[in-house]
């Protein structure tokens, strides 16, 4: 039996499929988890999956534009984390819980 040749490189589509898997896991976390902070982390996971797609397409077109989109996503994610975590801190201060199911009224 001849030895199976190991692949030396993988096609571009593998990266896209990996990105899809990560995005789906992010969606799953967003839907299933109940802690506010974990839901927030699932959003970050989805953003990361999208970033991978941008960089992969940048590779395919041999252009740098995808990297810039990734860069902007990172900046937006940083701003979002700053504001979002401040909101989470305030919510926890006012309600004493982080479970999304229990934070269901607009007024205290």
């Amino acid at each position, binding site marked *: 039996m001849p030895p199976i040749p190991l692949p030396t490189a993988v096609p*571009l589509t593998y990266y896209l499929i990996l990105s899809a898997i990560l995005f789906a896991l992010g969606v799953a976390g967003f839907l299933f988890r*109940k802690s506010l902070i*974990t839901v927030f982390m699932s959003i970050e996971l989805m953003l990361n999956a999208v970033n991978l797609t941008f960089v992969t397409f940048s*590779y395919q077109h041999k252009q*740098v534009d995808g990297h810039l989109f990734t860069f902007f996503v990172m900046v937006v994610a940083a701003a979002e984390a700053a504001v979002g975590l401040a909101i989470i801190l305030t919510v926890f201060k006012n309600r004493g819980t982080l479970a999304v199911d229990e934070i269901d009224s607009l007024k205290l």
Partner: protein
Amino acid sequence: MDAILFFLFAAIAVVSAINVVVQRHPISSALSLVGVMGSLAVLYLLLGAEFIAAAQMIVYAGAIMVLFVFVIMLLNAGAEKSPRKGWILTAVAMPLLVLFLGMVSYIIQRGFPNAPLVVFGQFTGGSPKDVGMALFTRYLLPFEITSVLILIAIIGAVVLARKEME
């Protein structure tokens, strides 16, 4: 070598991402997310995006996730209680998730029948110089707008997190 690196870090990324979703404790989730980001940084390097890989580690893993860990530690948020959404939800959702992934993979494979191989070093346009050139010429306006966005975020965070003045 490229293939080994891809499969190794893709596996780490997927396992860590699953860990993000299934771990009960927020700290475990946050550190698994750092694992995802680290392995994605290696994949960015394979795709020739040096600057983005470094920025991923500095901005995402080194700043944003530290902020998450910091807040989790500050709130002393304990482990989640077991989700009341029971096994029925899982039983329905898991096949749907797998089905969705299968369809997406099929579409991706059909959409790019002759996808090029990713060879490390074939695309070298992702150096800090190239990114900077594009950022300060073609993308100057979005860049300036993001700086305003960050300023707004800083002010918003300060307003939200300050102590109530009596």
